[in-house]
């Protein structure tokens, strides 16, 4: 890739394709150019523009941790033209990648703090990056708790990793499915994420909360966090807006004076409260 043309993507090879849930896939991508792969670095929270040449680009966070070198992962749901084309690709196929773009979760600021991750459905990927990043640097943080819910057991993503997190001794994992989404052998919680959060009653003392989920989940979870005493400056989320360029030029993701692709996608609740609700 020429560093000159900012619109030119890296060429990536799909090394692994995983069916996470109905309509949801994960790709593990390797850089076709090994040198680029060696030099590539990013931080948790950043995203990329993933191309299917001839169809277009789609925006996903980088779902793998920056502590793991040599590859990147993305998880997406088949929704429109580009994701439909991506879903049709197989291991060995080529995908374009532009990135890393956007701002980062300030993990360095969180040394010595408790981390509370709250995610819903397809929104676990952006947090999964941070989770592995934190777990790979486990000694930097105090308690690590994860609350993850989906509509049904089948809709949970990273099922294999949920097991891994559950089995570790240094993570408190709570999983839940919506009422009616449980299977006969489901051992986790049953209930909407905000209700389960209230039941969990986590302490807000010295704790950073990270929330990612569908708009309705966010809407109902934020008041619970407020009630539990989480300060807006200590509550982090990511915004998803329609994007094209990813570098603050095309104007599409403009929210107030911010560009979600440059000033975000990571925002604190405090910042969100000062922005027009156009996301």
């Amino acid at each position, binding site marked *: *890739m*020429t560093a*000159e*043309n*900012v*619109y*030119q993507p890296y*060429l990536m090879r799909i090394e692994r394709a995983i069916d996470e849930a109905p309509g949801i896939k994960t790709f593990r991508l390797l850089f076709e150019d090994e040198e680029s792969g060696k030099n590539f670095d990013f931080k948790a929270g950043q995203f990329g523009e993933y191309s299917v*040449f*001839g*169809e*277009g*680009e789609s925006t996903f966070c980088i779902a793998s941790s920056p502590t793991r070198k040599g590859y990147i992962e993305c998880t997406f749901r088949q*929704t*429109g*033209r580009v*994701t439909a084309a991506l879903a049709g690709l197989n291991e*060995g*196929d*080529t995908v*374009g990648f532009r990135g890393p773009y956007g701002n980062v979760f300030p993990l360095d600021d969180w040394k010595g703090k408790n981390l509370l991750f709250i995610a819903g459905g397809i929104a676990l990927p952006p947090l999964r990056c941070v989770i592995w990043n934190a777990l790979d640097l486990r000694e930097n943080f105090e308690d690590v708790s994860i609350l993850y819910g989906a509509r049904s057991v089948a809709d949970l993503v990273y099922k294999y990793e949920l097991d891994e997190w559950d089995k570790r001794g240094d993570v408190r994992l709570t999983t839940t499915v919506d009422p009616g989404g449980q299977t006969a052998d489901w051992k986790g919680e049953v209930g909407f994420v905000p209700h389960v959060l209230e039941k969990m009653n986590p302490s807000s003392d010295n704790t950073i909360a990270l929330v990612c989920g569908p*708009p309705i989940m966010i809407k109902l979870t934020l008041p619970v966090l407020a009630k539990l005493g989480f300060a807006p400056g200590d509550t982090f989320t990511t915004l*998803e*807006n*329609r994007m*094209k*360029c990813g*570098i*603050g*030029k*095309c*104007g*599409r993701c*403009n*929210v*107030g*004076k911010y560009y979600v692709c440059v000033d975000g996608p990571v925002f604190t609740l405090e910042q969100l409260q000062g922005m*027009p*609700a*156009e*996301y």
Partner: protein
Amino acid sequence: MTMIDRKLLKKESIQPLLNALRESGRRIIAPQRSGSAPGTWCRDLGPGDEVDLEQRTTVSPKSAFLPMVEEILRYRNEGKRIVMEGSRVQAQPTVVFGSRPCDTRALHALDAVFLHVPGDLFFRERRAATTVVTFSCESADPDCFCTSVSGGPRDAEGSDLLLTRVADDRFLVEVCTEKGKQVVELAPHLFEPAGDVDTEAFVATVPVRFSPVEVRKRLQDLFNDEEFWREQSLACLGCSTCAFVCPNCSCFDIQDEADLKGGSRLRCWDSCGQKLFTLHASGHNPRSVQSQRWRQRIMHKFSYLPEKEGMVGCVGCGRCSRACPADMNLLERLTAIAEARI
């Protein structure tokens, strides 16, 4: 702005100057009539073509720097492999001949978007290769409001050469930059030294109509007034005309066009006035009604941009008002906001 030099150019020397520019290998983009078709358009000027310095152009000269369509990527398929092909950058030396002070000022806003790191290679090369020759405005119409947004009919901001009529057959040529100097040096025999001249005799008067500072203040309070925005935008049809004729607007779409052999990725003009602009693939639309999209236009130009970049995103050229099929008239809307009435 301090001028490098001042010269005089006879009106009859304009054509020889254009010839000299062409002979030097420069491409000339100038406002022209297009046969019997209505309107004046910024187009490539051929040897026999005539520059139209009387009429305002329908679309601004921004297309010289940001064309309606630009290829930003090209690739070919080799079996299952994708092979990138070199970027086609337009770097031929070019002169935009016949810009207006408002249009030239707007380049500053385009620079803030496209040259901001990471820079857009295609815009950067065109910009670097282009010399801007601006003509001061001898007339204004009620849609013009450059003076309300820090501009003026003889404003030199962004120009390499500024030409102002000072007599029936003569223009004062103010050389603002090195690029402008190079144009003069192409045909120095065409230029005379300039003494004292009346620079205001042929310059239009454009009364100030509102204060952008007032507008910005009121916008802060008006943002959540849904009724206000609904009323303002009742007539708006949701087309892209205002954004496309505007010298400041630069929002774009990226589209792939391909066949089995390969394809290209294109950057094309887009507008926040369209429903599709912010529409997610999921169907969610943060600006789902026209009043929100109208509000975005106003807020972006008169509140967000001033806050973020310290500049108003409008140069008062009046094109949007002239071209709008529903006569939304931006100037009226702005004065209404400044005076805080619908």
